[in-house]
């Protein structure tokens, strides 16, 4: 069997991949991506891109075409709802931000990066002999072989690339299920310019709703093994009773598994030898499950690291781990209580929202947030977040020794 040879092979053809490809293709390297699905492919996502991510897309891929947006085309900010029936709306700093249709936005980004994609080709495994990486893949039941000097795993939460170098990793972290149903609207008082999020321990670990293409999305996240329909029914009833949201029965449903957690506790996975892991596969996840901007930025850094390693003849892991420090810091800061209280690590101002409330309401909100956080207690993140935050305070960075 013949082997195809490349400078860099990327697994996945999504946002992290397109950002990495942009850097690599621009530098004149020979790059290929393997994508399991046929493009353009669907991706479960709320599609709300932060202003920083929006700017990244424009600067690197050009003005956004209308075709890559859903209706409403933008999202003005986020509204938090609390069990005490207090709501806080926050606008994004830097103006409304795009509501991406991931099917087409990802395709557009990939095409604009100049990336050569082998579609419907699943990555199966790899071997890094120190000089080159041998990759096995499958297309239409046929096994294919590739070799590349570097491999970038940009294959999302259940990353098979990550699995091939750290076979036990999947078992070592908690997994969550997120699911969303699409329902026609009978009556919906929730402001359609905002993304709505509920801090309610009885509803789920992550509960949200927003408008898309004249339907309402109601979504919920919970520990793997739970029953989506039960969780969803519960949320739907709550929205109807407490917020007057009346919806037709669901027309469509989608869901997937999520590796939520590594960015909170500074436990990223960046790879080994000539294999780099990036995007959500590496554990990047901002507050409110905003994963696209950090996928784009971390992907670009992976691309830069390869270019830098080639140009300066340095080991790629060394270059990548140094360059990624700022992005890891930025992402983990989003969960750092000191940064949240004394700074503003987010792209919307929660504290300004709080200041508009009366003292009594503020106390109620703080109490509600603490009660909500208790449902995460079984994961033992609290102490780790605190210790990482203290180290950040003293050393102005998070320890890289915790990264894989």
């Amino acid at each position, binding site marked *: 069997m013949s082997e195809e040879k490349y400078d860099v092979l990327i697994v996945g053809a999504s946002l992290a991949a397109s950002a990495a490809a*942009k*850097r690599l*293709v*621009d*530098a*004149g390297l020979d790059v290929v991506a393997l994508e399991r699905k046929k493009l*353009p492919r669907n991706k479960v996502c709320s599609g709300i891109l932060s*202003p920083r991510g*929006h*700017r*990244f897309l*424009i*600067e*690197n*891929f*050009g*003005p*956004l*075409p*209308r*075709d890559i*947006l859903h209706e409403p*085309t*933008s999202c*003005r900010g986020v509204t938090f709802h609390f069990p005490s029936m207090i709501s806080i709306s926050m606008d994004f700093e*830097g*103006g*409304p*931000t*795009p509501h991406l249709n991931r099917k*087409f936005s990802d*395709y*557009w980004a990939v*095409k*604009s*990066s*100049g990336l050569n994609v082998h579609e419907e080709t699943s990555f199966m495994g790899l071997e890094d002999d120190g000089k080159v990486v041998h990759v096995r893949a499958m297309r239409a039941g046929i096994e294919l072989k590739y070799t590349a000097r570097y491999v970038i795993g940009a294959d999302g939460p259940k990353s098979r690339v990550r699995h091939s170098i750290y076979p036990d990793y999947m078992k070592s972290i908690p997994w969550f299920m997120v699911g969303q149903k699409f329902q026609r609207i009978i009556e919906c008082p929730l402001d359609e310019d905002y993304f709505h999020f509920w801090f309610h321990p009885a509803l789920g670990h992550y509960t949200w709703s927003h408008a898309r293409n004249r339907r309402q999305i109601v979504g919920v996240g919970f520990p793997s093994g739970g029953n989506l329909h039960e969780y969803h029914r519960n949320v739907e009833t709550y929205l109807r009773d407490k917020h007057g949201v009346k919806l037709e029965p669901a027309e469509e449903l989608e869901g997937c598994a999520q590796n939520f957690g590594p960015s909170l506790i500074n436990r990223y996975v960046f790879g080994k030898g000539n294999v780099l892991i990036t995007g959500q596969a590496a554990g990047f996840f901002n507050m409110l499950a905003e994963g696209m901007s950090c996928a784009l*930025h971390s992907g*670009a*850094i992976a691309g*830069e690291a390869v*270019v830098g390693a080639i*140009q*300066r003849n340095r080991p790629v892991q060394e*270059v990548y781990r*140094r*360059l*990624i*420090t*700022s*992005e890891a810091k930025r992402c983990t800061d989003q969960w750092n209580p000191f940064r949240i209280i004394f700074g503003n690590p987010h792209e919307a101002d929660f504290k300004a929202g709080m200041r508009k409330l009366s003292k009594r309401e503020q106390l109620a909100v703080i109490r509600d947030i603490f009660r909500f956080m208790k449902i995460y207690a079984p994961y033992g993140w609290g102490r780790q977040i605190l210790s990482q935050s203290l180290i950040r305070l003293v050393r102005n960075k998070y320890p890289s020794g915790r990264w894989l």
Partner: protein
Amino acid sequence: MHIPVFERGIIPPDPVAPDSLKGIPRQKTNPSRWQGDNWQDFVRDLQSRGVTVCEGRADCSVFMTDAGGVAYSLPHGVVRPNSAEDISKVLRAAQAHRVPVTTRGGGLTTEGESVAFGGLLLDMSSMNRVLEINSDAMTVRTQAGIFWHQLAEILRRDNLDYLSAPLNLTASVGGTLGVGGIDVNSPRLGCSADQAVVLQVVTPTGDIVNCSERENPDLMERVLFGYGQFGVITEATLKIRKFTPITIQYFYYSSLRTAIEDLQFIAREDASDYSGILTILDRAITLLVAFDSDEREREFNTRWKRSLRGHGEAGFGLRMAGHYTMHPWRIKEAAYIIGRRFKLFPEFWRPEFMHHGKIIDRTVVFSRAVWKFWGGPQMVIPDLSSKAEKFVEAVERGNAVCRKYFRHYTLYCVGIKLRGRLPRYEMSCIPPDASDIAYGCEFEPMLRGTNYSRDYLQSFKNEIYDIGVDMGLSYYRFGGMMKGYIRRAMGDELVDKHLAMKKAADPAMVLNAEVIF
């Protein structure tokens, strides 16, 4: 799905929301690599006309990035021209085959302006001969690919010198005339671009044209400060002067504002021949003044020195000692200042560059220090330029941004004498509202031994550039042209006016087209 392609300079309406990303133009600022359509035909065409195109990976890889080290790309091929005729052939063929051409002198830009995103790279360093020295008219005629230090060496044989040039050794004459060129004597003598008397230019359509303030003045005004948009400079006739060794004096400050006010005072009163500010920390600031002659120095000592509020080294050392005794937790800062003082300052009086207590080669002395202490694979030097009145505020705001991003950084401030309001200053490093003397400040983090991602450095630069937009300033252009900012800072009307001129001069938009538009 159809992927739309937008014509250069056209910014379509925003489908997200009219107020999304407040005011940031929806423009791709990291260009894609050109895909190579017609490349082979173009190469054959040139070869048949006797121009060699080097296409080897090694030939091209040398030009993968510029001094900024954040933009990376590869040309498809490189031409090292021997004459204006070679360049004319290149540009005629480029128009016909629509192949992008990037001119490169020393490659000291920092935003990728001299990086070829595919297409042809014109390596001007092959055109580096001095053609004629005229010591009556006090001018030199030289090929434009020459580096300033080569030019200085040749002039020195006749005890002559250029007027002003960038402090880095490997900037070329052509590249510098295209961006401005600022020296520590610019508060007196102006930009390097203003020293040019006559230019030979190859226009984007391949015509070889001479221009000066009398002959083809419009072209002259477009090419100077023109970022290579309106032609390739192949020859320049520049003003020169008698060579003189210099003496330097230093004054130390703990307040940026005071130091800047004194710098402006010196520039306004023409009290010294050279002046500039260089910080170690924002509480340890050096104001440097230098003189071409003993008379000028004597006059400074008797007339102006008393009015300056800076301290001598001993006095400043004592004050700092006092400060850090009261703030012992900042001891690391004190150690840094002392370390810097003992490493950096002796560079300015190394015996091999001194003669009878005077510096005999200021360019080498300054340039060596620049590379030795600030140099690295990534030169991050965003800057701001402003009229005198707004300068203190601009520097103080930029300083706050530096503090946020980096532990150690240097600010470098200098004045720039203007020659009235010439058309060449439009959309240039000269701020639109400045008269007489403008001021520039460069914000330079110390990156040695550290590593930051491109986006981290870009966010830092953006925050500095945002100050420019907010305060209506321009950019001194050490840092480069910042495509994403040009519309925000200069306004659509002005940029569109220049775009129209560019399209008229370069119908296929092939020459250095990624730099501004």
